């Protein structure tokens, strides 16, 4: 059962109650399972065909893990991941490989995600090889075409990754993701490791490709300004759970969850006049994020929430004890908070 009512559009990707727990063990000889790091703790959302869903949150919130669990790079501990109606969590071997042709990933670190011992041509052509698409001359042509599509000179087909800059390497990663003409691409912090003046180049490239090839993106990042720019809808994650999900305009205009409000308030705007004005309304959170091995009993945000006393007074709910439900409180606006 998906929690996002769809209306007309069929969801391309449907995530339901996804959980990714990493076990903590103790003991040298007998490894006792003493607990879990609850990296992703019950996440549900749909992604419509052709849209960009932004997944934003700070380090340790579980956004990258969510992306990997969707692609089955980690096998989820629990929950369902449906792609075009097919359940991915139960697929193995050949059947999983066949589906992977339609779902690809662009990774964060342009230095770690390319095999340094392979030429650019081999890297970009590898998905074609894995999925038995084209061969020989036709494959080489396709690789050249892909390099051109991402704005690289096809002449570089025989060069090695170390001969390129970070931004160029990221383009190689994009070309590789496009090779098999996927429908859905998970972009896991694709620009975080790049210099500011290069980030815009890659953002523009991703947007152009989305229009040209009808791609659907899950765009994972911690930079809310970038996410807001590229996404249609945005999900905000905190400590393994989604706290708010709505379209880009509403999230900025009317953030409901106290964490979203604090996050928006914390993002600097490159405009000294705007910054001076925002100063009065700044929300500064106290303290640090709790450990995902030991999340709070109630709402995950209760240790830092500035609105906790308001919830107790107005709704009579103790946020430390009772976990809030992730509900649609307005049309297409989902929040997990006792205040609503």
């Amino acid at each position, binding site marked *: 059962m998906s929690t996002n009512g769809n209306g007309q559009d069929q969801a391309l990707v449907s995530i339901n109650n996804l959980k990714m727990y990493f076990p903590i063990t103790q003991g040298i000889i007998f490894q006792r399972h003493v607990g879990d790091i609850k990296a992703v703790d019950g996440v549900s959302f749909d992604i419509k065909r052709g849209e960009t869903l932004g997944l934003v949150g*700070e*380090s340790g919130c579980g956004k990258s893990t969510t992306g990997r669990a969707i692609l089955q790079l980690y096998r989820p501990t629990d929950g369902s991941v449906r792609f075009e109606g097919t359940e991915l969590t139960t697929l193995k071997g050949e059947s999983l490989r066949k589906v992977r042709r339609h779902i690809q990933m662009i990774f964060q670190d342009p230095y770690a995600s390319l095999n340094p011992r392979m030429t650019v041509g081999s890297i970009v052509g590898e998905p074609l090889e894995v999925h038995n698409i084209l061969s020989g001359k036709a494959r080489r042509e396709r690789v050249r075409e892909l390099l051109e599509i991402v*704005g*690289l*000179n096809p002449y*570089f087909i025989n060069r090695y990754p170390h001969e390129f*800059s970070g*931004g160029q390497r990221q383009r190689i990663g994009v070309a590789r993701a496009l090779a098999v003409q996927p429908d859905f691409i998970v972009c896991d912090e694709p620009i975080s490791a790049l*210099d*500011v*003046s*290069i*980030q*815009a*180049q890659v*953002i*523009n490239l991703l*947007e152009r490709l989305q229009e040209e090839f009808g791609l659907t993106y899950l765009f994972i990042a*911690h*930079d*809310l*300004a*970038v996410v*807001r*720019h*590229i996404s249609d809808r945005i999900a905000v994650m905190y400590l393994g759970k989604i706290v708010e999900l709505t379209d*880009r305009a509403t999230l*900025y205009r009317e953030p409901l969850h106290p964490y979203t409000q*604090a*996050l*928006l*308030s*914390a*993002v*600097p*705007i*490159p*405009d*000294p*006049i*705007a*910054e*001076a004005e*925002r*100063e009065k309304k*700044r929300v*500064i*959170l106290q303290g*640090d994020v709790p450990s995902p091995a030991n999340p709070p009993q109630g709402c995950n945000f209760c240790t830092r929430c500035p609105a906790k006393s308001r919830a107790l007074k107005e709704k009579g709910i103790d946020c430390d004890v009772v976990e809030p439900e992730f509900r649609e409180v307005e049309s297409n606006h989902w929040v997990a908070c006792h205040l609503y």
Partner: protein
Amino acid sequence: MGTLLDVRNLRTQFFTQDGVVRAVNGMSYTLDEGETLGIVGESGSGKSVGVMSLIRLIPTPPGKIVDGEVLFENRDLLKASDSEIRSIRGNKISMIFQDPMTSLNPVLTIGRQISEALELHLGMDKQQARARTVELLELVGIPSAADRIDDYPHQFSGGMRQRAMIAMGLSCNPQLLIADEPTTALDVTIQAQIVDLVKRLREEIGMAIIWITHDLGVVAGLADRVIVMYAGMIVEEAPVRELYGNPRHPYTLGLLGSLPRLDEERPEELKSIEGLPPDLINYPKGCPFYARCTYRLDKCLEAAPPLESVGVGHRAACYVDVTMAQPTTEHPYQDV
């Protein structure tokens, strides 16, 4: 407001196997007492090397400060003796770095690392230093400071480690605090905490700050004046509102236009800067921004434009007045 720091024609190079890396190529600027100067630039712009050169933290070899003067308190720091510089570092001029986990000593307690400077520079005894250290930790907002003083860095979170670094940096009441990308490695809500803290301390203590970052958002909210660096040179310098409101160098213009803003109404295509920064070993002739500049002229290739006044307190290194000129090329970056 007196002048605290006067940097003249600073040049720093690194002598490597592949050639000479021209990291800083003639930086000149001044800093007033109590002023906050933001230095922005991308990787390779020379912003970090530039400030590390001020207090001679450049590893020599392979680095070498080959030219320039750094005038502080009537003496040239570049010509001071080793013991003189050591008495200034951590004392009158202190520095905090980007990643507190690698800049803090992992085998010493936080308390020990902070009190070290107090004992060395201010001549306190162990008891006095310990008491002052607790005060400092409280000042930077570390809860239960008296208990945490004997913790090790790995027992602190990233934000708390950075606060401890700030405490260390401010312990001897410096006149100048140099902060090299202190919040780049931190989450945005933690960054907001740290920036807020620095602003409060700045009001209480009144030290001058040089804040280095690539984040034009942070600088907008923090700096009085901003220097923009590219390929080891200052390309623009202005009071903060003037820089954002009236940028005069094509690089600054390009940078500001390429940033997605949180408060943008509709997403329009970002105006990106084509190409890459130049190779600092094969340093280009003429203006270092030529290859990526949409306003370039032939004369830009002959000689690098000098940094000249374009307004009150506003300097730019460009032959073109971008407020009046039209771009001369749409796709400057010919070779990929």
